[in-house]
């Protein structure tokens, strides 16, 4: 016999303002099987939970319906309450009368009657709830971090320091990511390499960290605690165990046609190369597309000059299979392609550069050894114009609709550094808004304007063109002075919008981690679970979750590491008991369910059954509960109704439909 208790939450005024909670409690109290009904200000509070526990004991409740916020918020809380009160946690159902009722319907009468209907549906469902027991599975004590930039390195170091094994997969030949390319960092102006390279070295030497550079994740299977991952280790054509990193090969390489990625293509590198001096691992890689040996079969100079005999042209890609308990996405960012912004002349004029290119030009290890020289003729520019929001906050379809967050600050940094090193320069910054809401950020930007004499112009550049004499003419508006001005500039630096790295999308699909329309990974909760993906066992670190600067990235990397450590520290994981179950008495062994299962959780076995006509042996479906994720595809595909999904049984859903349509 069902004895159901109904608990209606006011959520302060969040629900009570738009829904007559008293009326809801009364109406639901009259429903069949309901023996207790109450409303309270905050059901999730200590006192609210006490109210539930007392009601369970006093009324010998068998099922609980809480009319409150989204189950995504507090289902877990109320399940725990139920189990503390001595009934099975899966005998709880939530009617979502906040997000899906009081917050979206302004009319009290309509919202109240909807709340009652939603409550009825939950009551109807809970009548058919069955006590479920949580299963358990083991945890592989090893984590995988995808991406070897500052986010990935920091996450890996924190996990490794806690004593767990962690692997980093980086698609480039070296770890370090975008931060390795930067010159100075805002707002302290300390050198990026000086703070990053020690961490890179530490990651490489750490006994718990294994690096897979020049490698990509190819397949992810399994579930939280038990992921099985295939990693493609691309052929470097250099044997890592033999190479001493002397660099003789790179010096001798006669091919000099490839743009140097590390210097954003501002200079050339050989076909065999070490990306930069502090690269980790310090092992070269052959770019087969540009290698003369690969193209024509002749050359092999690098091989002849390698004392360690490490060059191996016959090397093949290698597939590594490894098991992990947790995965961290740290794929980082890139800047957008500026082809669609012809008015800025990025493609037409060599002296119009992106901020990342400018970063390399200003870097002492860069192509100009840190001297400010413009790409076209190597002259030191006297007038520099910075343009912000190039493709950021753009809803026209050419750029990205979000704010890239980092540009205001790095532009202030660039402007400041330029003025400091070259006091004879004129520096202009076109801005729409200066967004500097960080610790010491606004002070930093103001310093650029006040102490370094950077001219900030509120307005936007409309066109950049050459005057036929090799000067760049920058035409833009100054909204505050209400004038249009044309600045004769020697160099223009565009703050191109930042976007998630291209690899994020396919990785998201592999991890079945949800992503937003801009290809940022979605967090499990925007405020309360910012470093977890909704997919259990997948965590997020750095820019791949949303625009971030370095301090924020490092903070989030640490947070993600803590979550991973928390997961790996458990010996057993509780698994979701809402899994599929097959009734061998009804199953005809048709294989429909097996075909639709995305996880391979269904197999077939012979079972001895007695359907009333005598014992017989039949081929029936069997669900592996540890592998089943509980999507319910099999239950909908089953023609006989043998397959059902616990927690969402057909009976329960029919009951809900009936209640809603009553």
């Amino acid at each position, binding site marked *: 016999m069902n004895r159901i208790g109904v608990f209606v939450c006011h959520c302060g005024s969040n629900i009570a303002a738009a829904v007559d909670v008293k009326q809801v409690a009364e109406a639901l109290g009259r429903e069949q099987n309901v023996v207790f009904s109450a409303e309270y200000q905050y059901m999730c509070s200590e006192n609210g939970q006490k109210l539930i526990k007392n009601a369970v004991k006093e009324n010998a409740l068998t099922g609980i319906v809480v009319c409150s916020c*989204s189950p995504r918020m507090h289902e877990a809380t109320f399940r725990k309450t139920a189990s503390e009160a001595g009934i099975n946690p899966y005998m709880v159902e939530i009617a979502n009368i906040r997000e899906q009722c009081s917050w979206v319907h302004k009319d009290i009468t309509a919202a109240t009657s909807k709340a009652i209907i939603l409550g009825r549906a939950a009551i109807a469902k809970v009548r058919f709830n069955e006590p479920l027991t949580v299963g358990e599975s083991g945890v592989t004590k090893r984590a995988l971090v995808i991406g070897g930039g500052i986010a990935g390195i920091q996450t890996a170091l924190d996990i490794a320091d806690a004593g767990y094994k962690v692997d980093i997969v980086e698609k480039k030949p070296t770890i370090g990511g975008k931060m390795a390319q930067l010159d100075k960092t805002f707002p302290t102006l300390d050198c990026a390499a000086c703070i990053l390279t020690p961490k890179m070295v530490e990651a490489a030497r750490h006994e718990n960290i294994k690096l897979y550079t020049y490698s990509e994740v190819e397949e992810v299977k399994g579930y939280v605690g038990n992921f099985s991952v295939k990693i493609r280790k691309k052929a470097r054509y250099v044997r890592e165990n033999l190479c001493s990193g002397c660099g003789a090969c790179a010096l001798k390489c006669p091919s000099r046609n490839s743009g140097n990625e590390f210097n954003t293509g501002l200079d050339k590198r050989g076909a065999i190369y070490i990306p930069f001096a502090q690269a980790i691992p310090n092992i070269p890689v052959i770019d087969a597309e540009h290698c003369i040996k690969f193209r024509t079969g002749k050359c092999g100079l690098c091989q002849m000059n390698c004392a360690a005999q490490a060059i191996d042209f016959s090397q093949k890609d290698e597939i590594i299979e490894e098991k992990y308990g947790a995965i961290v996405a740290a794929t980082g960012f890139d800047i957008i392609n500026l082809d669609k912004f012809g008015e800025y002349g990025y493609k037409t004029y060599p002296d119009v550069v992106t901020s990342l290119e400018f970063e390399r030009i200003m870097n002492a290890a860069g192509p100009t050894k840190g001297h400010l020289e413009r790409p076209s003729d190597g002259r030191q520019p006297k007038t520099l114009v910075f343009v912000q929001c190039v493709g950021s906050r753009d809803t026209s379809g050419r750029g990205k609709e979000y704010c890239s967050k980092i540009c205001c600050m790095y532009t202030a940094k660039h402007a400041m550094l330029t003025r400091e090193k070259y006091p004879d320069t004129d520096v202009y910054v076109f801005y729409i808004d200066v967004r500097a809401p960080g610790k010491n950020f606004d002070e930093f930007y103001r310093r650029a304007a006040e102490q370094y004499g950077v001219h900030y112009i509120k307005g936007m550049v409309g066109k950049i063109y050459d005057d036929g004499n090799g000067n760049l003419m920058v035409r833009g508006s100054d909204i505050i002075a209400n004038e249009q001005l044309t600045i004769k500039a020697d160099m223009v630096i565009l703050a191109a919008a930042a976007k998630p790295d291209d690899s994020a999308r396919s990785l998201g699909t592999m991890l079945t981690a949800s992503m937003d329309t801009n290809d940022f990974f979605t967090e499990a909760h925007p405020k309360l679970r910012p470093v977890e993906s909704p997919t259990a066992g997948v965590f997020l670190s750095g820019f791949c979750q949303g625009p971030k600067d370095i301090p924020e990235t490092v903070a989030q990397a640490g947070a993600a590491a803590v979550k991973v450590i928390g997961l790996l520290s458990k010996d057993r994981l509780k698994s979701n008991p809402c899994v599929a179950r097959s009734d061998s008495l009804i199953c005809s062994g048709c294989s429909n369910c097996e075909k639709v299962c995305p996880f391979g959780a269904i197999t077939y076995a012979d079972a001895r059954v007695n359907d009333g006509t005598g014992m017989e042996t039949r081929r029936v479906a069997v669900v592996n509960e540890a592998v089943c994720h*509980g999507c*319910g595809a099999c239950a909908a595909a089953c023609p006989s109704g043998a397959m059902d999904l616990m927690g969402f049984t057909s009976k329960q859903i029919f009951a809900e439909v009936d209640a809603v*349509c009553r």
Partner: protein
Amino acid sequence: MQINEKDKSNRPNENPVPSDENFTPLIVAFCCNWCSYAGADLAGSGRLSYPAEVKIIRVPCSCRVNPTFILRAFQKGADGVILAGCHPGDCHYSTGNYFTRRRMTLLFSMLDYMGIEKERTRVEWISAAEGAKFASTMNEFAEKINSLGKCRRLGDLRCV
């Protein structure tokens, strides 16, 4: 002075469809837990309103929805049934929504035959980030159902 938001909406391409005042439709929305249900929650936290006639039933994945659930809703008096899941390729369970797509195409093609206008059913892909899309889809769907009017009830033979 600032131009009033409400006045502005009266632009030529925004002619609202007149609705029958006495008729309030009953709409059942099956939402997958990971994308569309979360999208509905986001619509809630963004206070994006949609008609109260829309009642949401949570399912783990859109592929959990057996065609009989939808027929049952019509049988019991629903005027419209909408099924919302993750975008193709983004299913939390990798491939669930592909099954939904195929299954529902088949079901919808048979609805006319049963006396239910095709427009009373719909499959939509709404991600957890698309609160605004959830609200606008529900508004639009409710408007559509409003214009179609009451659904001819599928008689439940077992009940009579």
